[in-house]
């Protein structure tokens, strides 16, 4: 595990989620924004499954 900075990766993933959700809040319902953010959030979820979910177990 030493080869990966899990904490830093997890932090960046959290920030990505926060930014994506904030963008959706500010879109004013523009579909071209909201639907693309939904897809980004689905990919962020995959990052969470691959990285973040494991984080607390390694502490």
């Amino acid at each position, binding site marked *: 595990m030493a080869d990966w900075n899990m904490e830093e990766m997890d932090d960046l993933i959290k920030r990505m989620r926060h930014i994506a959700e904030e963008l959706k809040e500010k879109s004013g319902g523009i579909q071209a924004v909201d639907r693309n953010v939904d897809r980004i959030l689905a*990919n962020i979820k995959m990052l969470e499954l691959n990285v973040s979910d*494991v984080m607390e177990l390694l502490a």
Partner: protein
Amino acid sequence: MAQDPSIYWNPILETLPREKLQALQLKKLRRIVAWAFENSPFYHRLYKDAGMEPGDIKRFEDISKVPKIEKDMLRQVQEHAPFPYGDILSVPTQKVTAFRQTSGTTGTPVYQADTWQDWEWWTESWCYILYAQGYRDTDRVFIPFGYNIFVAFWAGHYAAEKVGCEVVPGGVLDTQARILKMQELKCTAFLATPTYVLGMADAARKKLGIDPAKDLGIRKITCAGEPGASIPTTKKRMEDAWGTKVYDHIGATEIGAWSYECTEQPGGLHVNEGLFLVEIEDIETGEIITEPGKNGKMVITALDRIAKPCIRFDSKDVIRWAGFDCPCGRSFRLIDGGVVGRADDITKVKGVLLAPTAIEEVVRSIPELGDEYEAVVTKTGDIDAILLKVELLPGKEHDQESILFRLKDQLRVKTNLGYQIEVHPYGSLPRYEVKARRFKDLRKKGG
């Protein structure tokens, strides 16, 4: 055994120590059970009726408190709103972005709802498979599949793109056109059912004069949909026909793609324990089997699928844990020889338990026989009988007596049963493109 991390799609999960992996599974099981309890009326009723609440799952051993689900329950729930999935659905219908359904081989089809996140998850599970089997951004992958309502190779397509491969969709082309397109584009890999892998090779040789092993540059093949790629004699036939490695993976519409062979091919498949929880249950007693070598029914949970959660699904697939490790270094546990049968397929004939895969293993171990066969079980009065229809390869007719002697002998050794054998002209038995139906039990209604 430590390996270069670049051989894994995700070295974090794939080499996670077993105790951490189990802790991760417990955490995720609690999460998906809580999600289903809160969002799916079906699961809420199921758990309430069983007197269980998500908070009751505290330790790994508590998993057995979670009620199992079966395919019939998934069918029955479809009779209720919301159409067409029923109240198992855990998201508003507006969030569903993809419909798929099961083939209906064992009854009414089950309709499957996925959100976009679920679809990304399907794709992700296939990325583990393809990467473990050596797919990289240098591959051009052909997908000879009729893109339709069945999930089959849809997720394989998206995953191949995500891994970085160039994907050629072989959609509505016929078999000959598909082979010619693979040749024209110098494709390096393809995905198909074992039946179709053999069928394409046969068509290439007979109809186009192409020897797939020599004239096409295929470097790997990934199979799905049937157990053939884990049946050694069928695997060998495919590998000989194409001159390349053939890899297996196992998945199902209601579950996801939960298991895969890696390039080491140790004789078993890794369970993707980062995304799925697999339990093996004794068919007779229901006890959980943890030791290797003992067949049981698989009960499986997709730990991250949200629109239509799959929690402790009694799949009826018969599997067994392997008693060996894989040199690839993955900590994901292995199942020995893939799915060895289905609890509802293994049937008693003349009082002897028979798994249809055993017949396939014998037929395909005899090189003078064609790839196709059909086994038909009937009953006259109280007497069971099995008729086995086979094809001799062209030019082997003179040796028929000795070939059939070997066939009967091996069938008796491997299945403890006697068979009536019928030899049919080469090419006359049915050919299949997706799931083959070679075992027919006419004693059962609809068999």
